[in-house]
């Protein structure tokens, strides 16, 4: 099964049946969510991107190139690893880890970057811009730009540049220009604003390589497709290892690209619980967390209609998470739809729980997960002991923790 040519989805484009008081839909709807809310200047570019992608995904040479690079450059497939000591310690469900952290550049983000860079090349756009929070998407973008000889500009909030210093250096080493963003909370949301301002200015020559299942159509669909390979591999691997489907899959959710990537191959398997873990931050007060399903409401941010953390006047709230990659006030529109349908369940883990989980996984399994992924580990630590020994859980380790060493040092004193 090919991740980008096979359109298995529970959210057919244009399903408008349950839309409350929304304007009429264009393609790219997940129930009532998604859409394309951008200034007119970008509309033609989004339509061009949509058409180019629709054509590319049907083109065998595009798919072959994408798969070749996933295998030879990024290092796919990634292993599915049985975490024996963690399983034993928690005393419940059998825990498997999907090792996206082993990919080139250290996270799942490279899957999407390879796909979009190939697409940009087909469209004749040789200047690439991107936003980054934790820096993983920025590094992956800088990497593919180096590979393809493209100009690369990455926008990053200065607060994130501070906490992800190492990734800033990596991007520069790869030849990318990193532009600090001083506005707002100086994190991911502000970096996206600035990238959109660049795109609206240079749209004729520039491709915006958006890093998550966010933004205007076709991004949430296209980015998901480029990550569906995660779930397709995991499904095959677990069937081989256990002869059965897992009881649950757990993944962290910022914008939600790694989660949608691993969820998608299991959407039709109703017996498989899909669990997304948001950043609980420091507490439940607005501004102290990034749990969109815990206090967020439907709204439009940066091109898409989804759950958004905002005040009653519709101004977007500040967010907090120890992990820069989850520190964002909106969630991908397909997650909003999966949430409302009850197909996926969304929970949160606090900063402290994530830090503890990171340390636990490091010491029990010899794997230091990214702080983002540590949120998923925190959830399996709560959930596995309550499950049967016959249950099987897959946790998506979306990235590795090397980039977080500075933050871990600040927070874990030994």
């Amino acid at each position, binding site marked *: 099964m090919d991740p980008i040519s096979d359109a298995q989805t529970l959210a057919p484009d244009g399903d408008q049946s349950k839309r409350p008081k929304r*304007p009429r839909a264009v393609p790219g709807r997940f129930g009532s969510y998604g859409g394309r809310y951008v200034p007119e200047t970008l509309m033609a570019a989004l339509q061009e991107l949509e058409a180019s992608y629709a054509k590319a995904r049907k083109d065998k040479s595009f798919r072959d190139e994408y798969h070749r690079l996933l295998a030879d450059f990024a290092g796919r497939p990634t292993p599915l690893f049985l975490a024996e000591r963690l399983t034993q310690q928690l005393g419940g469900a059998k825990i498997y880890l999907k090792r996206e952290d082993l990919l080139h550049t250290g996270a799942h983000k490279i899957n999407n970057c390879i796909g979009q860079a190939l697409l940009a090349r087909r469209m004749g756009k040789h200047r690439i811009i991107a936003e980054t929070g934790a820096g993983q998407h920025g590094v992956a973008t800088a990497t593919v730009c180096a590979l393809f000889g493209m100009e690369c500009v990455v926008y990053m909030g200065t607060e994130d540049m501070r906490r992800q210093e190492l990734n800033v250096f990596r991007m520069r080493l790869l030849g990318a220009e990193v532009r600090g963003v001083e506005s707002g909370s100086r994190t991911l949301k502000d970096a996206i604003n600035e990238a959109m301002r660049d795109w609206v200015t240079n749209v004729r020559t520039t491709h915006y390589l958006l890093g998550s299942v966010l933004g205007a159509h076709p991004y949430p669909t296209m980015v998901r497709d480029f990550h569906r390979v995660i779930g397709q591999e995991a499904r095959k691997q677990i069937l081989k290892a256990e002869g059965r489907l897992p009881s649950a899959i757990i993944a962290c959710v910022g914008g939600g690209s790694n989660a949608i990537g691993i969820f998608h191959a299991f959407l039709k398997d109703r017996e498989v619980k899909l669990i997304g873990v948001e950043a609980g931050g420091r507490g439940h007060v607005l501004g102290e967390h990034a749990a969109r399903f815990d206090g967020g409401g439907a709204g439009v941010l940066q091109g898409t209609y989804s759950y958004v953390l905002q005040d009653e006047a519709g101004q977007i709230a500040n967010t907090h998470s120890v992990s820069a990659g989850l520190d964002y006030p909106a969630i991908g529109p397909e997650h909003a739809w999966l949430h409302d349908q009850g197909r996926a369940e969304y929970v949160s883990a606090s900063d402290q729980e994530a830090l503890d989980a990171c340390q636990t996984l490091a010491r029990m399994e010899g794997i230091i997960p990214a702080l983002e992924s540590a949120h998923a580990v925190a959830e399996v630590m709560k959930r596995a002991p309550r499950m049967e020994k016959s249950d099987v859980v897959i946790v998506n380790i979306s990235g590795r923790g090397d980039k977080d060493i500075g933050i871990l040092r600040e927070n874990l004193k030994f």
Partner: protein
Amino acid sequence: MAIKFHKPGLVAYITCGDPDLGISRDVALAAIQAGADVIELGVPFSDPVADGPVIQRASERALKHGTNLPGVLDIAKQIRAQTKAGLIIFSYLNPILQFGLEKFCAAAKEARVDGALVTDLPVEEAGEYLKAMKVHKLAPVFLAAPTSTDERLRDVARHSRGFVYAISRTGITGTRQELAGDARSLVERLRAFTKLPIAVGFGVSTPQQFSEVNTFADAAVVGSAIVQTVEQNPGREAEAVGQFLLKLTGTAQTATAGG
């Protein structure tokens, strides 16, 4: 709901609530006094992706002391009590969505504004908005961009009322040294699809640009230059904007009263 443009035409944008709503009202009245045919009352938003640094800063200041959509509608009402000039609510979508689309249109009508322009609402997504605007006899103004295909321009023209706002160049709001060559050809392309007045904006800040735009369009939109004038003249915002606009339109010597 017909909006009247004089020759040369002037549309003035202000970020409401910067430095406060009372001063924004006075700035609007001063702009009308100086000849503005239409005032765009900008609703500040936390994430203004289409705006440059000047309007970003003004929005931040306005939000800091809690400016919101009801407050903007309130000054619209006060301005309407004193003038017949065109009044347009200029906003990003989310503040309107949270207020309620239908409730917004009813309130806008009640404040007797002429219409609205929603920056991040392209025609494709505007179905229910258009319906509500029609019910309340409000003019939806849409943006046309140099990158818009002819097919898109036709849709923009078909759904716009009052006037069409043509963006002079790709990019964000803010003043520029020179007008892009994009503007003239965009207006020419648009004329094929509409008889509505066409206002050209993004980057207009000098008397030369103002008169140049008015040779091929029905009005020039001035935004960031006004917002910057407000920023730089604390305590005498309205007076400074009035003077700036008189100079811009080339009527500084002759006129004491505008449209």
